C-alpha cells in the first residue's frame, strides 16, 4: 500500500467502517513504516475524537419551547380551517388530479365507448339476420322490402316501411280524435346524414318488427338521439334525400291501446295542425303555429289508426 491508497482508506480506518480487515491491516502496516502517514492517522483520529466529543456535548440541545407552542397553534388553526372548509383539496385528490391519472381515465373511457359502439353494431346486425322470414306484406311494404332495409334499431316499426309509405295531404280524422294523454313523454331521434358509401343488402330479408311503443318519460323532457350507421346499416335510397331529419317514436292512440298486433299494416304520411304537438307534450314554435306538421300514421289491417309519429324534415 502506498500513501495515496492509505489516504483513500483513512476515513474508514479511523471510523472503523472498513469491512475488509485485510485493507485495514495493510493501512496500519503502512502507517508503521511511513512517519507522515502515521502523523496523518493521528491527526485524523484527533479530529474524529473532537467531532464525537462535540456531538456528545450537543446531544441534548433542543429547539426552544416557543417553537413547539407556535407549531401547535398553527396545527390547530389548520385543523379548524379544514373543518370549516371540508372541500379543501385533500392530498389524495391531488394525487388523482395528476396528469397520469387523467390520461388513464380518459383512455379507459375511450376504450369503453369504443367497445359499446362495436357491441351495439354487432347486436343490431345479429338481430336483423336472426329474424324469421317475413309475412306477406302490404303493397307499400313490398316496395320498401325490395329496397335495402334499415337497421332494426332505427325506430321500431319504421324498419322497412317508414318514409316510403303513401303520402296524404289530408288531416287524419282519427289522429286528432284519439290523442294520448298530454303527460306522455316522447323521445325524438335524429337521423344521420346520408352516407355516400354504397348500399349493401343484408344477407336475409328483414321482417318488419312490431311497432315499438315509446316509453313514457317525465313531462317536458325530450331525448334527442343522434345515431351513426355502420357499414351494414345503410338507409334506403329514398331516405337519403331526407337530410337532418328528426322523428319521434310511435305514439299509440288511446283507442288502439299499447299493443300492436304483428299483422299487416300501413303507414300514411299526413299533415296535422302544429297544435297537435302540444297535445302530445312536445314543444311548439308559436311563430309557426299556422304551419302544419308532418306525421306518419300507423294503420292496422282494418284501416284503424294505431299510432302516430311526428316527422321533421
Amino acid at each position, binding site marked *: 500500500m502506498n500513501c495515496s491508497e492509505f489516504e483513500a482508506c483513512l476515513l474508514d480506518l479511523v471510523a472503523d467502517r472498513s469491512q475488509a480487515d485485510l485493507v485495514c491491516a495493510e493501512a496500519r502496516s503502512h502507517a508503521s513504516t511511513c512517519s*507522515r502517514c502515521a502523523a496523518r492517522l493521528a491527526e485524523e483520529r484527533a479530529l474524529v475524537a473532537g467531532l464525537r466529543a*462535540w456531538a456528545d456535548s*450537543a446531544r441534548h440541545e433542543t429547539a426552544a419551547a416557543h417553537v*413547539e407552542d407556535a407549531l*401547535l397553534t*398553527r396545527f390547530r388553526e389548520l*385543523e379548524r380551517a379544514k373543518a370549516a372548509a371540508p372541500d379543501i383539496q385533500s*392530498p389524495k385528490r*391531488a394525487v388523482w388530479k395528476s396528469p397520469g391519472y387523467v390520461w388513464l381515465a380518459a383512455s379507459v373511457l375511450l376504450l369503453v365507448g369504443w367497445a359499446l359502439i362495436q357491441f351495439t353494431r354487432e347486436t343490431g346486425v345479429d338481430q336483423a339476420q336472426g329474424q324469421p322470414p317475413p309475412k306477406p306484406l302490404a303493397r307499400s311494404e313490398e316496395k320498401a322490402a325490395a329496397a335495402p332495409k334499415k337497421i332494426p334499431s332505427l325506430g321500431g316499426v319504421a324498419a322497412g316501411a317508414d318514409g316510403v309509405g303513401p303520402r296524404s295531404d289530408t288531416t287524419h280524422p282519427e289522429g286528432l280524435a284519439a290523442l294520448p294523454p298530454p303527460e306522455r313523454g316522447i323521445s325524438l331521434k335524429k337521423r344521420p346524414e346520408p352516407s355516400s358509401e354504397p348500399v349493401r343488402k343484408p344477407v336475409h330479408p328483414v321482417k318488419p318488427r312490431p311497432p315499438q311503443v315509446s316509453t313514457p318519460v317525465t313531462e317536458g323532457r325530450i331525448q334527442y338521439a343522434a345515431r351513426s350507421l355502420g357499414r351494414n346499416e345503410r338507409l334506403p335510397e329514398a331516405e337519403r334525400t331526407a337530410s337532418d331529419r328528426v322523428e319521434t317514436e310511435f305514439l299509440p292512440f288511446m283507442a288502439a291501446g299499447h299493443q300492436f298486433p304483428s299483422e299487416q299494416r300501413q303507414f300514411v304520411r299526413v299533415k296535422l295542425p302544429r297544435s297537435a304537438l302540444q297535445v302530445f307534450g312536445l314543444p311548439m314554435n308559436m311563430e309557426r303555429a299556422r304551419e302544419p306538421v308532418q306525421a306518419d300514421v300507423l294503420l292496422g289491417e282494418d284501416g284503424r289508426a294505431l299510432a302516430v309519429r311526428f316527422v321533421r324534415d
Partner: protein
Amino acid sequence: MIDPQTLGDEELMRLTRAGDEHAFTVLYRRHQGPVYRFALQMSGSESVADDVTQEVFLALMREFFRFDSSRGSLAPYLYGVARNQVRRHLERGKFQVPLDGDEASSFEPIIAPGGPLEDLTLLEGLSALRQAILTLPLHYREVVALCDLEEMSYEEAARSIGCAVGTIRSRLHRAHALLVQKLREANETSSGVRSNSMRCFT
C-alpha cells in the same frame, strides 16, 4: 388505548394527517432535536436553528403528502427539508449585518489549543473545531454535520442530501482534510511557527 410514544413514524404521520394533535406532538418531540442540532451546526446560530426547526415542521404539517414512506424513513426527509431551509437562511444572512452582541461568536477567530490538533476534546479545542466547521463550504459542512455529528450512515446522508454515496464519501474525506488544515493553520498563526505539510504521497 395505544400510547403514541410507542408508535412508528408512519403511524404517527397517519394520525397527524387525521388531525391528531397528540400524534403531531410526539412526532415533533421525537425529531426536533436532531433537526435543531443539524441547523445549529450548519448555521452556528441558535435563533436560525429555532427558525429552521419551526419551518421544517410547518412544511411537514402543510404538505404531508410530499413525504413518501416507500422512499425512506422520516428522519432523512426532515434533514433534507432542514438543509434547504438552512441554505435559504444563510443566503438571506449574506445581506444582513449583525447588531452588537448578536451572535458575534461566529466571527471570532479560530484559536486552536496548544499543539496541532493536540486535544480537540477540551473546551478550547471544541470551540476551535466548531469555528473551523463553520468556515467550511456548505456542501462540506453538511456532510460533517450529518455523518460525524449526527452519526448518520453514508447511505442515509446520501438520501438526505440527494446525491450518491460516493459523493458523500469523497466530500467527507475532503472536509476532514480541510478541517485538519484549518486547525493546523490556526495553531501556526497563534504560535507563529509554520511547519511543513503533513501530507505525503510517496
